[in-house]
Structure formats: C-alpha cells, structure tokens
C-alpha cells in the first residue's frame, strides 16, 4: 500500500505539508462558519418588537437557513475536497517518481566518476570539527570513500548570487589532488546554466589541495556563482586536509603553533588568515613576499579577534617556526630564541598592521616600503575573497606640515572583475588625491559631483583602498611628528 504519510521522502514533502496546513485552516474555517450558522438560528426571545422591526431583513429559506452562508460553506468544502484530491495525487506521484539520495549521488557522479564503488565500512558522517568553515560560508554534508581510496566530499559553498550557495560532489584523490566535481544542487543561482558543461572535468582538476584554490571561471561569465563553486571546492579541500589528513597543511600547522604559544589565555580569540598570498606586486612579488622583504621571511599573518585585535606573525618552515604576536604595537608573546633586537621583530614594530573600522567593515593595511614620501601600502582583506590592493601613495606636507596625498598609483588592483566595481574603484583611487588624515572622512563621504562617495558594487574594495591611504597618511604624520 502506498504510504501517503511518508513525509520523510521525496521532493514534494514541503508542498504536501503546506497543503495540509491549508486544509487544516480551511477545516477550521468551516467549523467556525458552522458555529456561526447555528448561533444565527437561535430564537432571540428577549428582542422587543421594535428592535425586531428595525433589524435588517435577512433572506431566509423555509427552515430559517441562510443561503449566503450555505454557499460559503459549500465553496470552502469544495476547495477542501480539491486540496485533498490534489494532495493524494501528488503523494502517489511522489511515490512513483521518488529519487533517493543514493540515486541523486549516482547521477551526479556518473559523468565525472563512472563506476564508483563505495567503501561500505567508511563512516559517511563528516567530522563536526572541520565540517564548517566561516571563510567559505561552507559546510561538508557527507563524505564517501571509494574502494580505490579516493574521497567524494559533498560540500556546500556560500557567497553565491544573492548570498546563495552551491553544493558540489568533489572528488579528491588519494594523492591529494582534485580529480573532478559535479553540482548536486544550488540555492538561488539562476545563471548556473552559464557554467560550462565540462567545468567539472576541467576547473580545479589536478590541483593540489594543500593550497587554497584561486577563483577559476574559465569560459563562464557568472562571478557570484563561480565564487560559490570556488568556496565549495575550497571547503572540500579544507576538510580533506584537516579531517582526512590529505596533502600538506602548513597554514593549519602554523595556526596550531600560534594557539599553543598563546595558551588558554587567548583561547577565545578567533584566528583568521590575512590574505597576503593572492596578489602580485610589480608583476613578480606576492604581497607575502613584499612583506617578507620588510619582515625577513614572513610566512603567515593571522588576525586574532577577541577583546582586542592581535596579529600573529609566523616565519620559516614547519620545523623551525618563529612566532611573534603583537597587540597595540607591543609584543604579547614570542617563541623561544626570538629577541626583541632581531631585525624582523624591529621591522614588525616599525611597520604595524593598521586596522580601520568603517561602519560594520574592518579593513587592514601594511606599509611595505617608504622612501621620499612615496609609500607602498598593501590593503589587506581577512578571509579568502581575492581583494588585495597595493597602492603607491605619494604624500607631501601640506601648509601645516600634515601629510596630504599628492598622487596614487595602483600597483595591484584587486577588484573582483566586472562592472561597476572596476570603474568605481579606479575613480575612487584617483579622486582620493588631495585627502588629509583629518578630512578623509568628509572626503570619502563626499557624494557630490566628482566626489569619492560613489563606490557602488565595490564597497569592500573601497574600504581596502581607503585603509591603504589612511595608513600612508598615518605613517607620514607619525614620521613628521617624530622628526624623521
């Protein structure tokens, strides 16, 4: 017998539930109308003759029935009957055309991993410690292992169009490389059909999961959906590195070392990588490399957010990690053997990470080079979105000796491709010329013709640019005040 109440199955369950709720509401309405009907039939003994005469006459049938009410009850009853029949029909269809999770899985995999044989002894429930990652707005839902040792990770990546998501099956080989991926489902990605049909066999394929994977959108014109796919693939890679032990994970090792160094006192602090590896300075150096020039071999920079912001600088290889943790430009902790007079420690204090809060956003900037009033500043973003700006900002003394921007050149333009981000960020960069530290708020918020306040579609990029300019002006004013 067909199980009409099998609510745990099928895609139309939500619809059935909604319909049942509607039916229940309609039954309630029928009961209510019936009660009203019977009340209206009670004789009103106490009514005086005058009141009776004044009362509006109601159409009555021979036995005192109200035809309008009867028609309403009939209408609702028919609607309820139609609902019941439709629900039953849908339940039958649901039973006949039900697609199990296993079927969906096999369908998605048939194109990218034909002949998949699952290892039945492998627990498909993901390790909860690594099943989510805020940076990718991601979640791992299930993990399968093939008899050949490959893993298939069902990973959701957020940050798509209108903050929607894409769920992928990502095949990660035993050699820690991505073999293929396929879309399982998506939320709100109306242009997902613009992702090329062969993307699952080309994008990210063969890449090592030890490193975070940069956005790939070859042949596609949908930035947001491609970003969600990128986040889902990175989510799967993150899980494979941390929970399945595949590939190298020097970043996680570094974070672990920082946590061990700080101990319980800062256990509540949330540690996030500062994006220093995506962009390239002068076409050759990465931002990390540029910062390393200043700080002698910097490998990672972590933002630690708790009661206050701290920055953890990590140097060197896994076996010889050196860590310095700085809060308010003072050293909080450092590994053994690191001296305050070491060159990189001196450089850290001389080139702090500037933190700026613009409304609900926080932006960061580091001055990587300064000579003759020309500051090379990296505007950095926390997390994985590939916005990094490196600006060469020329600052000259104004009439009162305070710094005033006289020229800005974007060495690295980290906008996410597309309009109006590109036009607006370029406009912002040129129009900040003339700003001073004491008037940059008004300057930035100027929404008049030619003002800088037009940053539609590039809010985060604008914050990084502004942070870089403010960092250069702060550094200039500080050096002027100290007489250097």
């Amino acid at each position: 017998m067909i199980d009409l109440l099998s609510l745990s199955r099928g895609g139309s369950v939500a619809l059935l539930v909604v319909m049942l709720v509607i039916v229940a509401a309609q039954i309630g309405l029928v009961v209510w109308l019936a009660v009203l009907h019977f009340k209206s039939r009670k004789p009103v003994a106490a009514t005086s003759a005058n009141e009776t005469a004044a009362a509006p006459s109601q159409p009555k049938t021979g036995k005192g029935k109200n035809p309008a009410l009867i028609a309403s009850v009939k209408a609702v009853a028919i609607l309820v009957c139609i609902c019941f029949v439709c629900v039953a029909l849908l339940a039958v269809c649901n039973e006949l055309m039900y697609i199990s999770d296993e079927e969906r899985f096999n369908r998605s995999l048939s194109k990218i991993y034909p002949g998949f044989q699952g290892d039945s002894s492998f627990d498909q429930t993901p390790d909860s410690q690594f099943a989510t990652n805020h940076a990718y707005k991601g979640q791992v839902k299930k993990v399968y292992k093939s008899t050949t040792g490959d893993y298939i990770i069902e990973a959701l990546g957020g940050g798509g169009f209108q903050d929607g998501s894409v769920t992928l099956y990502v095949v990660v080989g035993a050699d820690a490389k991505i073999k293929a991926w396929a879309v399982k489902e998506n939320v709100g990605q109306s242009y997902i059909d613009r992702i090329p049909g062969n993307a699952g066999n080309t994008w990210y394929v063969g890449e090592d999961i030890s490193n975070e994977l940069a956005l790939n959108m070859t042949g596609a014109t949908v930035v947001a959906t491609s970003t969600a796919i990128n986040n889902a693939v990175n989510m799967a890679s993150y899980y494979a590195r941390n929970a399945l032990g595949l590939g190298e994970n020097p970043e996680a090792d570094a974070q672990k070392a920082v946590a061990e160094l700080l101990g319980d006192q800062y256990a509540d602090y949330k540690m996030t990588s500062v994006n220093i590896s995506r962009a390239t300075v002068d076409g050759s150096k990465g931002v990390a490399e540029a910062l390393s020039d200043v700080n002698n071999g910097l490998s990672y920079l972590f933002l630690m957010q708790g009661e206050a912001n701290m920055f953890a600088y990590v140097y060197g290889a896994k076996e010889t990690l050196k860590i310095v943790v700085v809060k308010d430009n003072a050293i909080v902790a450092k590994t053994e053997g690191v001296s305050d007079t070491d060159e990189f420690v001196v450089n850290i204090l001389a080139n702090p990470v500037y933190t700026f809060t613009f409304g609900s956003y926080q932006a960061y900037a580091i001055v990587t080079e300064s000579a003759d009033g020309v500051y090379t500043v990296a505007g950095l973003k926390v997390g994985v979105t590939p916005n990094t700006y490196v600006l060469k900002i020329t600052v000259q003394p104004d009439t009162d000796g305070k710094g005033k921007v006289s020229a800005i050149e974007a060495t690295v333009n980290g906008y996410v491709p597309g309009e109006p981000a590109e036009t607006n960020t370029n406009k912002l960069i040129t129009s900040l010329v003339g700003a001073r530290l004491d008037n940059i708020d008004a300057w930035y918020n100027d929404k008049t013709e030619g003002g800088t306040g037009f940053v539609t579609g590039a809010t985060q990029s604008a914050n990084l640019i502004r942070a870089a300019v403010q960092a250069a002006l702060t550094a200039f004013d500080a050096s002027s005040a100290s007489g250097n």
Partner: protein
Amino acid sequence: MKLKKFKEIALDGVVRQNPTFRLVLGTCPTLAVTGMGAVSCLGMGAAVIFVLVFSNLIISLLRNIIPDKVRIPCFIIIIATFVTIISMFMEAFLQELYASLGMFIDLIVVNCIILGRAESFASHNPVLDSVCDGLFMGIGFTLSLTLMGIVREVLGKGALFGAQLWNFKIEFFAKPAGAFLTYALFIAIFNVCYNAVERKLKHQAAHKAALAEHQSEAAVAATEAKEA
C-alpha cells in the same frame, strides 16, 4: 464535437489566438527559455501542453461544481498540482532537460496562458472542447517558442538543436536584449502576415457573397421575366 468546431479551436490555438504572438502571454518563459536553445524550448512546450491539457480537463469536468467565489484558488491548486507532477517527472526521467530549464518549470504555475485558458475557456466549455483548446494552445505556444529558440540559437550560438553548425555567431541574440528584439520581430512578422491573410480571406468572402447575391438577383429577374 463537430469537425468545424474542432477546426475553429485548432486555428484559434495555433494562429488566431496564438498565446505568444497574438495574445502576448507567457512572456517570461518566452524570453528566458528561448535563449537556452531549441531543445529546451521543445521541453518547455511539452511541459506547458501537459499542464494545459490536464488542468483544462479537470477544470472543465468540475466547472459546474466549483463555486464562482473560490474558482481562482481552485484553478491555482489544480494547475500547481500538474506543474509539480511534470516537474517530478522531468527530474526523474529527463534530468538534463530538468537541469537546463531549472526554475522555469515551477514558474509554469504563474504562466498567464494556463490560468487564462482555465478562466476564459475551460470553466465555460465541455470537456472535449477544453482538452482540444489546451492541446492547441500548447502547440501554438510550443511552435512559437521553438521558432524563436531556433532563430536565437542559430544566430547567437551558431548551433541548431545543440549541434554546432558554424563558428559565426552574433552573441547579442543569445543575450536578454536579443530576446526582446527577436520577440518584437516575430510579433511584427506574425501579425503582418496574419492581417494580410485575414484581409485576403475577408475580401474573398465578400466577393463570394456579392457574387451569390448577384446570381440570386439574376435568378429572380429571370423568373419574373419568365412569369411575365
């Protein structure tokens, strides 16, 4: 049903009241789905035919039972049921088509053609007439959609029914603005042709009527002359 009425319904659905080019209904899927290629258009058309035929059938069967006050909610529930069924069917058996059409299958519920035919035809006509109306309206919609899809696919992608013909393509036609232009051109051409044919038919009918009148007058005159 008489053959003449069947012909009338068929002509209405496909030509005279063509939902896409004459009534300008179902514009949303017309603009969107035609950009996905002719195969998707055929799939969308088939889904619409299914929903139209079955919703018209049920609504016509129940036309004397459904009270006027709740007819719209009843129609919507019936239409939504058949849309859900076709959506389930496509997901189960036509995965590629389902993936390419995506949300547009579910959006058939709010397609003006379906509710329009339910309200204006099925709720006032016998079952067989309503089924025929649904079928031919669906065929009219499918033909229009497929024609537009073919033109946009050939011009915008250099392909036909998914098969690449040549590398030359005018991408504009595959984009939303191209959809509007193609749609406008089709409406214009269809209506120019339709009006021309209609004028010609009217002219022929008037000529025939005049001829018949002339003949009858001549016959009367001949009879009178004979009698005299």
